[in-house]
Structure formats: C-alpha cells, structure tokens
C-alpha cells in the first residue's frame, strides 16, 4: 500500500544500450497500472528497476515517500511474479509460499494462517504438499502469485505472468487476477505485451516504445484518443486502418479528402484543429475496423474497395480489403444482420463500398506521427 513515483528515470546497460529514457510516472496508492508495449521496449527493465534488480542509471524512484534508488530489493517491501514462475524447486509449495515469511521470522501460526488463506484464494490448497515439479503450468503460476500475496506487500509487480499459459488458461487467469485485485487491495504494476490484457486489467495503461512512454491513460482514453500513430496502431485488435489522405481547411471548417471522397469534420474536431493551428496538409487517417460500415446499396460518398480475404470469425466477419491505391483496410462486420444475399456479395474479388462518420476518424501528421487533434 504505497504510491510509486518515477522521476526522470533512465537505464543504460553496461553495453551502452539505453533501455529506458527519461521515464516519468506517478502511480497512486492502490492503483493497477499496466506497462504495455512491443518486445524490447523496456517494460521489464523498468519493472526490474522498481524491484531493485537493476541499478537506476539516472533519476529518482520513490516508493511511498522514501527514495529507494539504493535500497536492496529485500528492503523495498515489494513482491514480484516472474514470467517463468521462478519457484524454488527443492521445497514444497507450502514452503515456497512460506519462504519470505520465514525470512521475516514470523510466527508459525501466522505463517500457516497466511499460506492457507492465500492457497484458498487461488484454489491450490490440495497442492500445498507437492513440489513445483509435480504441478502444471497454470498451477505453478498460481503458486507464484500465492508466494507474492502472502507477503501483503506495498507494491505488487508482475512481469508477463500469463504469457507462458495457453490461450484458454490465460483468459481464466486474467479473470482471476481481476478478482484477486479486488481482494488484495494494494498497488499493482503489471507488465504485458498483450494489449487485451492491458485493456482489461489496468486502471491506467502506460504504452511504451523503444524506452519512451508513448501515452499514459485509462484504457478508454488510450483507445479513444491515441496521442500518436504508434498507440493508435498498438491498442485495438484488429489493428487500426491507416490511409493516406488530405486535410483541407475551408474557411473555419476542415474536411478530409480521401480517394475522391470528402468527409467534413464535426464541430469539436474543427475547434480542436483550429486551436492547434493546423492548416491544409497531408495526413495519415486512422479508422478502427469496427467503426467502418459497408454499404451494400448506393455508393454516394463511399470508398471503393475490392475484397481480398473474407475471414469468418463466427459472430463477425473480418474483411481484408484493398483500395484503388492498394492501401489495405480491415473491416469488422457483425454477422447477425447480414442477409444470405449480402453474404454472397462478400466473396473474393468483388467490389464493395465502405464509409465512416467523421467522429471516428483519427488524424495524424505523417511526419511527427502525432495526433493532430489530441496530440
């Protein structure tokens, strides 16, 4: 139960690789923060600096009000769950979970109480007498989490705890972590490269790339108002579609011109663009697949595409389209209200028309990659 503050934290490894640049973040008490980003972006490095497993090259790290740059991991009052579990193989599950408590010279009854309670929460009571070798991956992961929660730490760190599990188990454990979080009321910092995990778990998401923070915000904020091209592309699945387009300023209003189609922007967008002093320019237009609609009849003000691939996902169709400029677009189409006739039309090579309203469009500067409205 403590806040965590990172001020201008920087990590330079021995081989002169700068893994984290100027990291600034304030994590409130009892907040669930998720670090997300592609492989090698410095998530683990940041987490390991928090844990005290890596030195901090520059900047200050505070847990609560205490500067902990030079504090040993054991004195930071943190617990960490590792991607590869890191269970002690020579002792039983019970002893694994009791290890940290024994080091703290806690009473035996208290140890027993805590271990049993944690085991109950995680549903591993029947495995307490086994060695880690005799457990499945999912069970081991629970033990690893159990080992962390018995400590009742100030900050709870997790480094891709679910990435070694298969898809089904991962979904289940994700739900369990959400429930766990309600029971174990403490500060969580969670690292993942999976944006679904990030969206579902986090109070706030920190999107990282190449050691820089790209955006910090609630899942909704990050999804609705991505600050730049990277965040827009990283959050959301399937990925946001990016198209070359032109932003035209006409008097006080703006509109987007795209493949001969002209879409006027709405009042809020106009105001924001004017406020940001944006003129007529080339832009990268971003539209999410689920915000695009397909027109089966009429093609006024719609973009012509041809169908490349038609992926049937059950409740929805993913259409991979290409425009006349060979930009590719993905469209998500719910299957419930498609007629038999319409389904037939959606086969390979056929022409079709798509459209989207102004409010779902994200406008990015192709050079700075910043969002022209929110950036």
């Amino acid at each position: 139960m403590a806040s965590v503050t990172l001020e201008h934290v920087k990590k330079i490894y021995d081989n002169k690789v700068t893994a984290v640049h100027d990291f600034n973040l304030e994590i409130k008490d009892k907040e669930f923060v998720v670090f997300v980003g592609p492989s090698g972006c410095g998530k683990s490095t940041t987490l390991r600096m928090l844990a005290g497993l890596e030195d901090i090259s520059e900047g200050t790290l505070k847990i609560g009000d205490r500067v902990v740059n030079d504090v040993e991991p054991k004195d930071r009052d943190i617990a960490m769950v590792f991607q590869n579990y890191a269970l002690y193989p020579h002792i039983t599950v019970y002893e694994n979970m009791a290890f940290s408590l024994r080091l703290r010279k806690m009473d035996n009854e208290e140890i027993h109480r805590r271990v049993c309670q944690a085991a109950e929460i995680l549903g591993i009571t029947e495995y307490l007498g086994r060695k880690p070798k005799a457990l499945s991956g999912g069970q081991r992961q629970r033990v690893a989490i159990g080992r962390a929660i018995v400590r009742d730490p100030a900050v709870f760190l997790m480094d891709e705890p679910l990435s070694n599990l298969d898809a089904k188990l991962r979904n289940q454990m994700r739900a369990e972590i959400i429930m766990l979080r309600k029971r174990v009321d403490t500060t969580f910092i969670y690292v993942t490269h999976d944006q679904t995990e990030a969206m579902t778990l986090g109070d706030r998401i920190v999107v990282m790339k190449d050691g820089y923070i790209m955006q910090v915000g609630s899942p909704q904020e990050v999804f609705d108002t991505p600050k730049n091209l990277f965040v827009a592309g990283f959050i959301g699945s399937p990925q946001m579609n990016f198209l070359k387009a032109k932003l035209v300023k006409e008097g006080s209003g703006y509109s987007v011109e795209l493949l001969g189609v002209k879409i006027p922007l709405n009042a809020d967008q106009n105001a924001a663009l004017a406020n940001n002093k944006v003129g007529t320019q080339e832009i990268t237009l971003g539209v999410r697949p689920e915000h695009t609609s397909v027109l089966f009849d009429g093609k006024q003000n719609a973009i012509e595409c041809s169908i490349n691939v038609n992926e049937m996902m059950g409740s929805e169709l993913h259409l991979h389209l290409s425009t006349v400029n060979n930009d590719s677009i993905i469209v998500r189409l719910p299957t419930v209200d498609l007629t038999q006739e319409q389904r037939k039309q959606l086969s390979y090579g056929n022409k079709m028309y798509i459209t989207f309203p102004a409010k779902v469009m994200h406008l990015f500067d192709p050079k700075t990659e910043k969002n022209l409205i929110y950036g």
Partner: protein
Amino acid sequence: MSKKNKVPEVDIVVDEQAGVIREVKPEKTRSKKGHERRVNTSIYVILVIMSIIWLAPFVFLVFQSFRSYALESGGMVDYLLPKHWSLDNYRFLFDGSNFFPWCGKALITCGIAAIGQCALLTLAQKKLSNMDSSDKKGRLVWLLCTLAVGLVVFLALAAAVQGMAFAGNVGKICIVVALYLIVGYIMARMFTKQDDRLLRQIPGYVADEDSSPLKKLLSLCLEFLAMDLILLCIVSPMVTSQYLRWYGNTLTIALFVAVLQTIIVLSVSYTLSRLRFKGRKLIMNVVLVLGLFPGFLTMITLYFLLKQLGMTGAGAVPGLILIYVASSGMGYYISKGFFDTIPKSLDESARIDGATRFQVFLKIIMPLAKPIVIYTILMAFMGPWGDYVFASYVAFGNVPNYNVAVGLYQWVNVNDYQGYFTRFCAGGVLVAVPITALFLALQKYYVEGVTGGAVKG
C-alpha cells in the same frame, strides 16, 4: 545387383552368383537383432577386460595384505593366494596402540549419554507441548535444563568409564563443550524442520520431532561421539602406533582441507557466477592460465615460504593444510558451470522475498547444487588424502609427521622392501576404507537432478 555393395563383404566373396542376394535378404531382417547382440557382447567383453585391469592390482593388494609376514615371506612372492591366512599385517599397523579399547569405551560412554539425553528431550517435549506457548522464558529454561543435565551426565560418564582426568584440564574441556554447543546449534538450525523455534535452538537435537526414536538416538550419539573424540585427544591422548599417527595426520589434513576448500570453492564459484564486478573476466582468465602450470612447479618457493613460517618438518600438518587450501579458489570451473545452469530468476525471486545474498546462497543455491557440493567435498578430501608430492618434501625427514602415502612408501623404500611389502599392502587397504565409505554414502546425491519445475523449461 546393386544391393551387393551394401551386403557384408564375407557373403559376397564366397559366392558371386545370384543366390548370394537371396541369401542376404533374410539375413538382413535377422541381422538387426544379431547386430545388437554382437555390439552388446563386445561392450561386455571390453568392460570385463577393463575391470580386470582395474581390479587386478587391488585384489592382489588385498590378498597380499592377509599373508603373514612372520610365517611366510614379507616381500614379493610369485603366488597370489597366501598359504597362511592371517591378520598379522593389520595387527602390526596397530602395534603398541590402545586404539580398540579406546574406541570401545568411547562408544559405551556416548551410547549411554545419548539414550539419556534422548529420553530427557522426549520428556521435555511432552512437558512443553502442555505448556503455554507464549511463556517463552519458561520454555527456554526448561530446555536449557534438559541440555545441561545431558551434558553433565555425559561428562560424568566420560570420567568414570574412560578415566578422563578433568582436574588440570578445565579450560580445554570448556572450549570443547563450547564448540559442541556452537556446532550443535548450527546443525540444528540447518537441518531441523522443527516448528518450535525454541526447540530448534537446542544443540544436539538434530533429528526432527517426528522422526523415529532410532534416528534421534543415532544423531545424538554421533554428536556425543564427535565431542568425545575431541575431548579424548586433548585430555587423554590415545597411544598410537606409527601407522595410526600417519593415518591421523592424513585424516586431520584431509578433513580440514575438505571443509575449508569446499567453502572457498563454492563461494568463489557463486561470486563469479552471480556477481558482476570490475575485473571479473580478467580474474577468470588469469586463473585459467595459471591453472595450466602444474602445481609442483612452485614446490621450491613454497618450501622456503613454509620454512619461514616454521611449517615444515614438525609443523608439516598445518603447513600442508595451508598449501592445499591456499590455491583452492582456482578450482572454481566446475561448480561455477553448475551454478550458471541454475536460473538467475531464482536468486532474484529470493532476494525480493527478503533474502540477503548469503541467504540466497545458503537456502536456494546450496540445496539445488547438492551434487556439485558433494563432488567438491569428495575432491577436496581426496586431493590431500592421496597426495605424495607435497607431503613428502614438507615433512621431509620428520617421520611422525608423515602422511600415510609418504609413510607407507618409506616402509618399502627406506626400511626393507622384502620385509615390509605385506604390511604396506595392509596399510593400503585401510587407506581405501574412508574413501570407499564416503563414496558409497554420498553416491545417491550425485545422481539426482533437483532443478525440475523451477522455471518454465
């Protein structure tokens, strides 16, 4: 006909006709099994021959050691089995010593003391389990009393049975008892799974609460025996024969070296495997290069150094311990290699769990590296146990300070080759005993792999 080339040569040479190929086909299906059997047979033959080569000298040695030097010749003979089986040679090794009575008395003392202490502890445990667990002081007093009573009983028995003279030796005895308390404490801390932490503090109470009475008894007995031996050496030294003296020297050296060298080697290996510091690579490379030179190149220098310290001749035992232990850090390769295979995330996890580096080493790495710890102990013990080169020149000319190898060699070389050969053989057989016992006792730890399930593999 194209198959002809693949067929074993013998068949084709015999007959060049088409029949050969027909002959070969059934042969091919059969040959797989036959081939396997042939390979197995040859492996067995080779193994048998090799073991004969290995075993023959040892068997020869054992047989010779049972040939009486009084009734037959004490030297080399051209027959294998002795004509008169006897224990003459072994008797000679213990000539003039009171070794066996000494051992018997020690066993009696320790046995009785252990039974007594065990009963007392069981009583204490019963009493404690009825006691209020928050009354820590009361519990401690109870336990300490139990312990003290056990000790007094032991010392009284030692005085009565073994006739130990306590009068002028109070200081020494106090030192030994203190040593016993410390060692017992450490052992108890390390090996018990006892829940009652107070009970754990009891030295001597090595066995678990729930382990069998026999096990408890044995462990107590062993501890008393260790103390008894030390006491006996100080208070009433055993009268020894020349051979026993050498044996004792060797054992002392080997035990000290085994303990010290193991500690040093494992610490150095852990450090090099886990810590990153300036010059780490350099140290490893330098040590590697230095290791390429044979150790005895430094012989002369070492001799003069030891001479300055007064550790040659009469001081050969500490001198040799110093030599063997001094360079032991250089033998880090194997254990470092093993430590490297233990995932670093275990260290990290333990450190986050609240362990210091030393606790990580002791509680995580050591149990996981059991095979390599055992290996290190064995090697550290065997080096000095069988060493001749260093031992011969450090103790040069000072017969009572020889080790077994040098002493036995002196019998056949300096004394009388024809007269002492069978006695030499008997000495050799006894030298093999502790090593064999050590290997057999520690063998099972060698094989087991313990890292399974640590991390996702």
